[in-house]
């Protein structure tokens, strides 16, 4: 078996950073990253981007050396992705925040509202319901992060955690402040409005969960395979016929429900901003599906059936 030689150059300065000899032909990029990490301990594999071309796309950890378009002396380029943090850590932190913060406003912890309201509870039953729904939503997200989701990337850049937490925690505080305020005004159409909103919210929570389960089942444990999702026996997944990312569709529905339930403008703003972001993600995912699969169902839209 002929061994390969691997040299790793800095993508920007073209300096020779590492030379590996006697590399097995069936070695993966992941294994090469581990070897590179040994000579440069500050660059753990998750922050290494290895490419064939200084400006090209990153190679995947699963790629095998002998299947790449390289000679027996392979030249790779390295770019430092910066400090990395695991997706699980980010998700847990960004979801735990809203859960705790909202409850602080709900229980009217001191220094938020006027002192005479400290530790009192709202007299409106919709406020109690809203707290249950909001808390349920984030507990669901935390549990899904721990037990349901299968991530294709292990890590993301460290600065993302600050950005993401500011968004989630900031909006949670803003919404919770008004809903739990002593001067909160309940919905105009009263019980009817709240009941309808609750139905929409619960329907979409179940829907969103069904989609997460369906997506998880597409992927065997520990793998990073990508397959086209299809409707299953669960009626909540039949929306796959019309939409590529129904998890986002249901998420939008949940927050629309919560907006109607609380009749609170900051909640509406949060829903709109979230919708814009999810549409960007859905369009990107839809485009990747179309690029990767020739036989992708043509009837599907990224996030809203027929519309968007």
């Amino acid at each position, binding site marked *: 078996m002929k061994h390969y030689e691997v040299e790793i150059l800095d993508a920007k300065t073209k300096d020779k950073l590492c030379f590996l000899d006697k590399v097995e032909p069936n070695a993966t990029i992941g294994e090469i990253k581990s070897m590179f990490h040994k000579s440069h301990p500050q660059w753990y594999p998750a922050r290494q981007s290895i490419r064939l071309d200084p400006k090209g796309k990153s190679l995947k950890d699963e790629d095998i050396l002998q299947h790449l378009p390289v000679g027996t002396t392979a030249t790779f380029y390295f770019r430092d992705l910066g400090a990395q943090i695991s997706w699980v850590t980010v998700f847990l932190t960004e979801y735990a925040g809203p859960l705790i913060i909202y409850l602080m406003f709900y229980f009217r912890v001191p220094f938020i509202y006027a002192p005479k309201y400290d530790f009192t509870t709202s007299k409106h039953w919709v406020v109690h319901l809203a707290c249950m729904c909001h808390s349920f939503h984030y507990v669901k997200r935390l549990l899904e992060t721990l037990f349901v989701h299968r991530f294709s990337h292990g890590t993301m850049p460290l600065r993302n955690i600050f950005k993401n937490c500011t968004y989630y925690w900031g909006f949670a505080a803003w919404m919770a402040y008004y*809903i739990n*305020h002593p*001067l909160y*005004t309940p919905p*105009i159409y009263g019980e009817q409005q709240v009941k309808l909103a609750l139905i929409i919210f619960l329907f979409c929570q179940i829907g969103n969960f069904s989609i997460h389960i369906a997506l998880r089942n597409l992927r065997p444990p520990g793998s990073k395979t990508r397959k086209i999702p299809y409707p299953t026996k669960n009626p909540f997944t039949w929306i796959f016929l019309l939409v590529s990312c129904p998890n986002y569709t249901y998420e939008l529905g949940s927050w629309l429900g919560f907006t109607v339930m609380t*009749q*609170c*403008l*900051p909640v509406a703003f949060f829903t709109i901003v979230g919708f814009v972001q999810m549409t960007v993600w859905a369009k990107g995912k839809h485009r990747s599906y179309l690029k990767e699969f020739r036989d992708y169902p043509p009837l599907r839209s990224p996030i809203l059936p027929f519309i968007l």
Partner: protein
Amino acid sequence: MAASMRANITRPGHRDVGHRRKREPPGALATAYLVIYNVVMTAGWLVIAVGLVRAYLAKGSFHGLYYSIEKPLKFFQTGAILEILHCTIGIVPSSVILTGFQVMSRVFLTWAVTHSVREVQNEDSVLLFVVAWTVTEIVRYSFYTFSLLNHLPYLIKWARYSLFVVLYPMGVSGELLTIHAALPYVQKTGLYSITLPNKYNFSFSYHTFLILTMVSYIPLFPQLYFHMLWQRRKVLGHVEDCRKAE
């Protein structure tokens, strides 16, 4: 604040030595339009400058000169919104976001502070930023005009990259003092504010918003100021190279 900064942030220099990105110059029609635009703006701010001088000579004091140039100030400062459009359609090689931020901060000060809070119009701080803006804009728009015509006198380039040293802190001071002067009136009248309870469960305190705006100057001012100083060194430092290129 970003207001007084405009001079050097948008176009670092027509013949910037070491300017990395090569941008295609605007076509003939775009160039003609831009020349007209910049000439008109130069003229407009000259009108404001002359108006200020005449009013000062007539009154014999610096007090209350705002009223003499209120209309052209509003017109020409608001007109600068077109510059955001120029960046969007690509005839000017500046960042849309950066230009947008700068123009809107000027427009905010003109309409949402000075125009809206009548009581501050007599403040001397208003004169401070109006003078800073006027001198800055006359220099900036002439700079663009001459650059487009490929005949940039060194004096104008020097002025654009040097006067900011004084004008920028002057403008910032005027703006901050004016916003500060507006605070008590905004609080008293509840201008542009929404209180609870209301059926949308929303509130907005313009008073708090103005305070936050003032606070935002703290991180932004030094960054922009030092960036301009750095650009000055880059553009005027290589005087010989620039002259040769001309």
